[in-house]
């Protein structure tokens, strides 16, 4: 079974620029999560999708972050404009459904550096 694919693996941008990250979940996984992991901290949920609908985006900084999951498969997370404090690893995870019963599969993340 293929894992959760994320790209790019690394990205360096200047502050105020925009950036986009892509996630391809495991085939058939209806639930998709985006987590932000700042250096020295644990991952924090940014947004959760169930198919192509948003379940939870309460911790997403909506003035600069946006995410979509067209057709309930791939997802894109965008930051515009980026700030220095956005430097982090952005992890995507997918699951057959919401809830821990289904388990979680994580991708290898995108490391973003904002200079």
């Amino acid at each position: 079974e293929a894992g959760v694919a994320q790209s790019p693996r690394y990205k360096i941008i200047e502050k105020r620029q925009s950036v986009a990250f892509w996630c391809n979940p495991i085939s058939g996984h209806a639930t998709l999560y985006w987590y932000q992991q700042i250096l020295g901290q644990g991952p924090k949920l940014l947004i959760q999708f169930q198919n192509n609908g948003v379940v939870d985006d309460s911790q997403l900084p909506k003035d600069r972050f946006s995410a979509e999951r067209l057709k309930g498969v791939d997802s894109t997370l965008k930051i515009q404009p980026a700030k220095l404090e956005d430097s982090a690893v952005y992890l995507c995870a997918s699951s057959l459904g919401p809830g821990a019963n289904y388990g979680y599969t994580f991708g290898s993340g995108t490391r973003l550096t904002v200079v």
Partner: protein
Amino acid sequence: AQTVTQSQPEMSVQEAETVTLSCTYDTSESDYYLFWYKQPPSRQMILVIRQEAYKQQNATENRFSVNFQKAAKSFSLKISDSQLGDAAMYFCAYTVNYGGSQGNLIFGKGTKLSVKP
């Protein structure tokens, strides 16, 4: 608010020895899951072990076992016969378990484990 606390930023163990990583959590829920994840430099979160709160028996997976103390809200990970490949960041995580729950994982800050040859 539900929180997960890992009080040991770094731990070190000699190869073949045993090490215990600590985790405490705060919740008012009675039905939930607890996890230990390993994150090597590749950054991918790898599930080490999972515990369901309503199960009294501590979970075990080969060399990995947990000490789950529900009343104390404590969930420690014991790694026996440590191997060089165990070196990584370890994260404790929590999620509620009830009908309609979203399944969002709440993570601690992690413990960096070093294994000395």
